[in-house]
């Protein structure tokens, strides 16, 4: 089975199998054609295949007449910020986020600095399928520049947005694990900007991932141990492009990535009340946080693009997902790991509470997440079949199927990035959540 996922905001595949120079050039040519000869920024995470895709994307954008500003290794939220700041037509981030090192992907960013919306994504896909690439004549071929001195404007903006004085005077020590991804070295700048003392792990931009670049408790052992030893205020794990964060408390407890969004919301919504956007897979914790602040929770389809487009359309205060991605509309329409860490630290400083103290204020649920392989050509029909497992009146069909009951919920959906069906259940009781997931998995495996 060759793995290739084409979505509205980009294309993702296994390098050497489906992710080839030609595929990247074709997609980037489609995107360059869509940009209509405007300026484009590109950035990559630290994966070994990054320079190959960077070269392919540069060539393609240039050939369609786009001037290319190459940020080199750079986290996606900084690229997204700079697209707006520099008035570019768009950008390409070369990163597979939380996927393993064998993957890579192109994510397309529009002039607003967000992932392409559905209509823009459909445009690019049409151009790709039609192979209607603009071929610039010689005098219009885009120049390719390296750009490595624009990050400072991002740190300045971040420092202005946060309560810098509160964070600085708290004099925090923090442990951060960027997983040798795009966040490596950038976390030094982050801590310098916020006046925190950094203890960094896996902070070399080598692209060698010592664990899956997925911020979640099972990868957090090292950070947890170091937090305890160093007496740090908090620990953070980042994915390979710094769009997702998971948190480790000062006592070394590795918090589920589900906590990131409700924790940030419990602070930010107090200052900036407004609706909050999330997907059908995220924990009910957010409903509790929102209810206490009398704001609405709006659930949309899974994925950064949907969450952000919905945040802009609903003029929501925030958007986020249970995987640790958080966006704040007042800062930028992007899942931004730096802002997320900054708000958690600010919250801890302003409220004068430890992370575990802040966590106590949020009702506890048990969430179980599993995934099962399913051939791409039948994922949606298999997911749809699973409706039979539930009472029709409990079903919400936003992205796959979600069954909502008093004590908990189950969400079943086709992964947008892998040939997998994801099954998530949440319940007050850990056993019941596991039971729900097991029942669904048993049903699905009969169908595959």
């Amino acid at each position, binding site marked *: 089975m060759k793995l290739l996922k084409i979505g509205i905001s980009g294309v993702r595949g296994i390098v050497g199998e489906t992710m080839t120079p030609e595929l990247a050039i074709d997609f980037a040519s489609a995107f360059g054609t869509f940009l209509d000869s405007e300026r484009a920024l590109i950035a990559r995470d630290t994966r070994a295949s990054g320079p190959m895709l960077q*070269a392919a994307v540069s060539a393609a954008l240039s050939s369609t007449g786009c001037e290319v500003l190459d940020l080199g290794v750079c986290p996606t939220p900084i690229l997204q910020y700079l697209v707006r700041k520099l008035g570019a037509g768009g950008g390409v981030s070369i990163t597979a986020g939380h996927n393993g090192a064998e993957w890579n992907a192109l994510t397309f960013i529009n002039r607003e600095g967000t992932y392409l919306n559905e209509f823009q994504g459909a445009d690019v896909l049409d151009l790709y399928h039609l192979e209607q690439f603009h071929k610039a004549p010689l005098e219009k071929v885009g120049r390719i520049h390296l750009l490595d001195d624009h990050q400072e404007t991002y740190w300045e903006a971040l420092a202005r947005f946060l309560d810098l004085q509160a964070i600085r005077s708290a004099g925090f020590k923090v442990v951060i694990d960027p997983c040798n991804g795009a966040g490596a070295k950038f976390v030094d700048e982050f801590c310098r900007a916020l006046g925190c003392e950094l203890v960094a792990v896996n902070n070399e931009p080598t692209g060698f991932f010592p664990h899956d670049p997925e911020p979640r408790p099972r990868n957090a052992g090292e950070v947890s141990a170091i937090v305890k030893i160093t007496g740090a205020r908090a620990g953070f794990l980042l994915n390979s492009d710094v769009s997702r964060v998971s948190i480790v408390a000062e006592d070394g407890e590795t918090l589920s990535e589900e906590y990131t969004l409700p924790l940030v919301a419990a602070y930010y919504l107090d200052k900036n009340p407004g609706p909050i956007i999330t997907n059908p897979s995220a924990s009910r914790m957010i409903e509790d946080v929102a209810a206490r602040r009398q704001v609405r929770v709006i659930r949309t389809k899974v994925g950064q693009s949907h969450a952000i487009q919905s945040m802009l359309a609903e003029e929501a205060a925030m958007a986020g997902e249970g995987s640790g991605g958080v966006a704040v509309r007042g800062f930028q329409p992007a899942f931004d790991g730096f802002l997320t860490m900054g708000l958690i630290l600010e919250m801890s400083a302003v409220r004068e509470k430890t992370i575990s103290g802040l966590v106590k204020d949020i009702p506890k649920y048990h969430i179980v997440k599993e995934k099962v392989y399913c051939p791409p050509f039948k994922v949606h029909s298999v997911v749809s079949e699973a409706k039979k497992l539930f009472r029709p009146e409990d079903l919400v069909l936003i992205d796959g199927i979600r069954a909502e009951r008093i004590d908990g919920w189950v969400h079943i959906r086709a992964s947008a990035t892998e040939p997998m069906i994801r099954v998530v259940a949440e319940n007050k009781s850990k056993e019941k959540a596991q039971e729900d997931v097991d029942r669904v998995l048993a049903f699905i495996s009969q169908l595959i």
Partner: protein
Amino acid sequence: MTTKSHSLKVGVSGVRGVIGESLTPQLAARFASAFGTYVGRGKVVVAQDARPSGPMIKNAVIAGLLATGCQPVDIGIAPIPSVLVFTKESQSAGGVAVTASHNPPEWNGLKFLGPRGLYLNPSQVEEFLDIYHQGEFSFVLADKYKKMTAEPDPLAPHLTRLLKALDVAMIRERKFKVVADCCNGAGAVLMPGFLEALGCRTVLINARPDGAFVRDSEPVPENLTEICRSVVEKKADVGFAQDADADRLAIIDERGGPLGEELTLALAMKHVLAKTPGPVVVNISTTRAVDDVALAAGVPVYRTKIGEIHVVEEVLQRNAVIGGEGNGGVIWPRVHACRDSFSAAGLILEMMAASGKTISELRDEIPFYVVLKDKIEATSEEAHRIVGGLRRRYAGENIDTLDGLKIQFADSSVHLRPSNTEPVIRIMAEAKTRDEAARLVASFREDILRPKS
């Protein structure tokens, strides 16, 4: 008959196409992927000439090489002979040069180099093109990726070889004043340093390597008016004009007269044979003057098909002391078995220093022929059909069909040949007088165009 021409050429000398039409990044990446598959995961030198589309195409090439597990060594803008020498000395598995030689600016292309710093020969090209056409490239998984490297001083191996091969002390003593026209091409990155090492007082024109071809890149007299004027104004001893990728050289005498690119090889050859007699190799089209020079030195001349690689292979096969082409391409194997405008310029300066004669005096010692060249547009299929027809018509004459059709008359000759790089038939006539050469060109032009009208 239509004269539709194709803007893409794939052949023994690589790939050439027009930016915005046929030469896309997809095509370049596919060829690089095929080349990476062919040479097998080694170090591969990547270089470009000064054309503004160079970075775009070069990035596509680098993507193709990285994806097939090769380690690209990006040496930036470099003269083609420097690229070849560097490929050899760095013990690379091969090289890809992003260049379209003398083609107009909207063109670019890829040339493929083998491990010894030689262009792929025809059978290697066939193997390589088979891989390209089959389309099965050996893409590697992410854990097999190699890191790209850059080279701080990629021109050094070439420059060192040049200075070792030449009598630098003797040249330096003369403090020649030289006007050099680099055509804003790749030669501009080495010519100033090279001439400085030879103690020359140098006047540079068109020496920005930005690919703005202010003149047509072909170093033929009609494109050299600026340098001719400059040689006179600056009272220089000699003028040197390179083509855009710096493998060919035209010479301007101290009175501002272009010698004609045919004489570059004849002069360099005469000088080399005086120092080190031995066999010489030229292509079928090269001026008869080389036969006279070789005869005087008592050495044999071997002729080959057109195409640099054919001459180079024969040079190596015959252990020749010098070889080349009548288009200003001098191959001095002591530096490297490739056309090299720097070898040519160095030999001419050394010849002037050793003889104490001016360049026009040296020119006058070479038997005089007038060479006139012309070309007629024709698709490759038409070109072959037309030349084939003429071959039958002139079967009774003294003809040579090694490459196209060459007809030897008593004091003159004419050579007709479908080009490998452009959709044209090339006509070359050589005679003792301009009138006679012009008459030959006109008469064969008419022969070719007749069936068209």
